[in-house]
């Protein structure tokens, strides 16, 4: 068997193609014109019968030598047919129909070549091979058309994808605009709420400032006149009058310091109070404070010791003074006997100030209450009650100056308050 080629039968045009190629081959093999036409027609018929789109169908063309004479072999492979091939059988010299295992059919047709002397040369075989395999113009056109269709289909799919993408993009843009709008509204709401809160805070500060002015004006008169009378500027007083007036004087001053503390706290809390930084000597400040408490310490027969090194610091002098006044005054107030000692030393970039007393001390369970506003511990309530704001304000002042304060105490033994401030305040 010399195979010349295999023609795939895949559509109508390939059937026409197979018919034409067989017709030409038959002519080359010197079949009679009628036989050639017959052969072509049969090829066309059989091809059509075995063709089915889903099955791989083909026509294989070969030469076969039987008893020294060459014949043409056509093998149609494809769909099983129940075609009546009686007249076809008559035309060929031999026809075999074989059903293959996969449910397909093979029709093998054999016909002797008219010239019994015919021997296929290599040149002849090559030429026919090429012709069989070569695609016709129509086939080429179909191939291109098919490719084109495929391309168009792909293009169509791409177009659809692009459109979908465009749609997705558009809805995304819409969603984004919606989110933007919501964010804008929310931001406006926040801004408004913030402004309102700021305004309310400002109102509070203004209210407190004017309120404290209104409260202080009559109080200043009370303190002023009481002072004048106490000094004897308006005439001599007897001892009882003096004693009672002193009480009134103390009460008025207490009320004033309460108002002042409240105003300070409100200013610190609203961030209005800015430290006024200057260079000053902490030892000199210590001497001033010691002098102002000396009489009180002597009256209570307490030792008041100041041990502060000669260091210049950059901070708010008035506020540091206020912190020290509060702590020393507390220590003296809550110490019945023994001493109150104020020490200080440099610690890296900071100054550590310690106010230590041998007073009543603070119970451990009360430690956390200590720096809260308006908290006065039962056992600390003395005749000269404080404002209940002193330590809270002190803590706030220390923080204002970028420092920190802590406390240690043993109930019945005494307390130690330590505050640490940067030597050089940095805003």
């Amino acid at each position, binding site marked *: 068997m010399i195979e010349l080629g295999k023609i795939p039968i895949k559509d109508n045009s390939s059937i026409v193609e197979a018919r034409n190629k067989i017709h030409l081959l038959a002519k080359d093999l010197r079949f009679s014109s009628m036989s050639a036409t017959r052969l072509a027609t049969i090829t066309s018929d059989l091809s059509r019968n075995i063709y089915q789109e889903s099955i791989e169908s083909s026509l294989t063309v070969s030469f076969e030598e039987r008893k020294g004479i060459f014949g043409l072999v056509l093998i149609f492979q494809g769909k099983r047919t129940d075609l009546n091939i009686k007249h076809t059988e008559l035309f060929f010299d031999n026809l075999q129909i074989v059903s293959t295992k996969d449910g397909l059919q093979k029709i093998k047709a054999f016909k002797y070549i008219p010239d019994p002397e015919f021997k296929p040369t290599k040149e002849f075989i090559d030429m026919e091979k090429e012709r069989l395999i070569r695609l016709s113009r129509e086939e080429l056109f179909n191939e291109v058309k098919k490719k084109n269709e495929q391309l168009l289909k792909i293009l169509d799919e791409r177009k659809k994808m692009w459109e979908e993408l465009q749609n997705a993009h558009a809805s995304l843009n819409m969603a984004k605009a919606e989110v933007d709008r919501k964010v804008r509204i929310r931001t406006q709401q926040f801004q408004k709420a913030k402004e309102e809160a700021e305004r309310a805070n400002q109102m509070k500060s203004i209210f407190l400032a004017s309120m404290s002015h209104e409260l*202080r*004006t009559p*109080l*200043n008169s009370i*303190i*002023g*006149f009481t*002072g004048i009378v106490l000094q004897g*500027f308006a005439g001599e007083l007897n001892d009882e009058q003096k004693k009672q007036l002193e009480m009134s004087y103390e009460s008025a001053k207490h009320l004033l310091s309460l108002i002042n503390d409240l105003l300070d706290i409100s200013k610190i809390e609203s961030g209005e109070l800015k430290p006024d930084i200057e260079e000053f000597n902490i030892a000199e400040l210590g001497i001033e404070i010691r002098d102002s408490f000396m009489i009180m310490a002597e009256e209570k027969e307490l030792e008041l010791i100041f041990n502060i090194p000669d260091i210049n610091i950059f901070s708010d002098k008035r506020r540091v003074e206020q912190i020290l006044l509060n702590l020393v005054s507390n220590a003296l107030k809550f110490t019945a006997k023994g001493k109150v000692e104020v020490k200080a030393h440099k610690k890296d970039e900071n100054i550590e100030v310690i106010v230590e007393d041998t007073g009543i001390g603070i119970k451990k369970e009360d430690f956390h209450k200590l720096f809260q506003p308006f908290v006065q511990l039962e056992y600390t309530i003395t005749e000269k009650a404080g404002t209940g704001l002193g330590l809270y304000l002190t803590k706030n002042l220390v923080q204002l100056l970028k420092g920190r304060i802590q406390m240690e105490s043993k109930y019945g033994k005494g307390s130690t308050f330590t505050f640490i401030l940067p030597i050089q305040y940095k805003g």
Partner: protein
Amino acid sequence: MEREVHLPLYYLSNIRDKKMEKNGKKKILVVDDDKKSRYLVSFLLEKEGFEIIMATNGLEGIEAAEKQQVDLIIMDIKMPKMDGHETTRRIRRLKKYKSIPIIALTSYVITEDKEKALKAGCTGHMSKPIAPETFISEIKKFLEVKDEKSNSS
């Protein structure tokens, strides 16, 4: 900063006695909207022999200062309508009040208040409540400093 000059006490008292004789009764203008506060200040000053002129608001204060020459002005800062700062600025524009001491009277002085008062043209400040035991000596100090200045120029 507050312009305070600390002179030795013996020096001060010597000069004071001589000046008091030489210049006679000194006039002090008290500008304050609070009646009781005015009374308190004038009570202390009159006891020392000063002549007191009182004004109940800024405009009255300016008017009083224009009408007669006073030696020192005590200026309450917190007043309705025209506050002490504005009143001080206007008085300072008058030729004869370029260097007269004007003392700001403020309750609960914080540093900013001090600076504001000095910026408006005040010479110094004192805080309310007034401490009767030191008030007079502070006022006298301001008067002496002023006399020193005008004598040396």
